[in-house]
């Protein structure tokens, strides 16, 4: 049982180091997902099966999906799409796939009910539910308010028809320019960081439909 924890921890460490050292953001995201899965296996060995499941479902399943979607929204220009085709080449998947295979073998070896042999019986959903309805009821309400605030904020910030200021607002030319260099997140083979390739004047009335 202890070796399983160390394997999971080692995979998590390696995946996290790979996350922060990748230049390509999509590669970093893949390794981050593997890191989250490895930490979920570590939770499983520590006797927290419900948190392991929630980590996989919510963290790796919802939050990372959101990250990947936003990353793909930001890089939806023509120059980047063919770079993305290079990113998603089969060779890229081998690193995270090997790490994930280690985790799968480990989970299969552990079985479904053999968790927590090191530190006692696993703390299941029942105890967590009792704690949430009991001493932590206020925390649950606060978390719901936080999620409501996050929902409203994200909706408001993500609206399409953002009221733009008047055209004469710019201090230099009275015309707004967007320096769209093509990829918001580095595609991995850019020589000049941040230098604008072409200046595209943005039409102020385009989004007002």
């Amino acid at each position: 049982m202890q070796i399983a924890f160390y394997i999971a921890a080692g995979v998590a460490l390696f995946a996290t180091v790979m996350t922060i050292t990748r230049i390509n953001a999509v590669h970093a995201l893949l390794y981050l997902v593997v890191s989250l899965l490895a930490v979920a296996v570590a939770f499983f060995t520590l006797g927290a099966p419900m948190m392991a499941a929630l980590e996989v479902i919510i963290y790796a399943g919802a939050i990372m999906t959101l990250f990947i979607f936003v990353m793909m929204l930001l890089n939806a220009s023509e120059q980047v799409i063919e770079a993305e085709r290079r990113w998603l080449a089969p060779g890229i998947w081998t690193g995270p796939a090997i790490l994930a295979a280690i985790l799968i073998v480990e989970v299969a070896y552990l079985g479904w009910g053999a968790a927590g042999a090191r530190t006692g019986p696993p703390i299941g959903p029942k105890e967590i539910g009792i704690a949430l309805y009991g001493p932590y009821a206020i925390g649950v309400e606060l978390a719901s308010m936080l999620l409501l605030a996050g929902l409203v904020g994200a909706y408001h910030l993500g609206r399409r028809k953002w009221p733009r200021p008047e055209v004469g607002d710019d201090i230099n030319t009275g015309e707004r320019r967007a320096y769209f260099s093509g990829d918001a997140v580095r595609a991995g083979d850019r020589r000049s960081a941040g230098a604008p390739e072409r200046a595209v004047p943005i039409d102020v009335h385009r989004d007002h439909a």
Partner: protein
Amino acid sequence: MSIEIMLNAAGLAFIVAGSRWQQPDGQVMFLFILAMAAAEVSVGLAVVLRLFQHFGSLDSDRASEMKG
């Protein structure tokens, strides 16, 4: 992404503590960390999208002026 790593690391510390003393409090704390991370990610990514839509790139030095 680094914030997610840090939140995950803190959550792991909470789970380990809850497991050591055999109390569900560690897992409850991780649940709250999870909810907070979800809210923060959604708002943060919405801000990033707005910045990209406004400046055309994700260079944070572009957003150094207050107006516009």
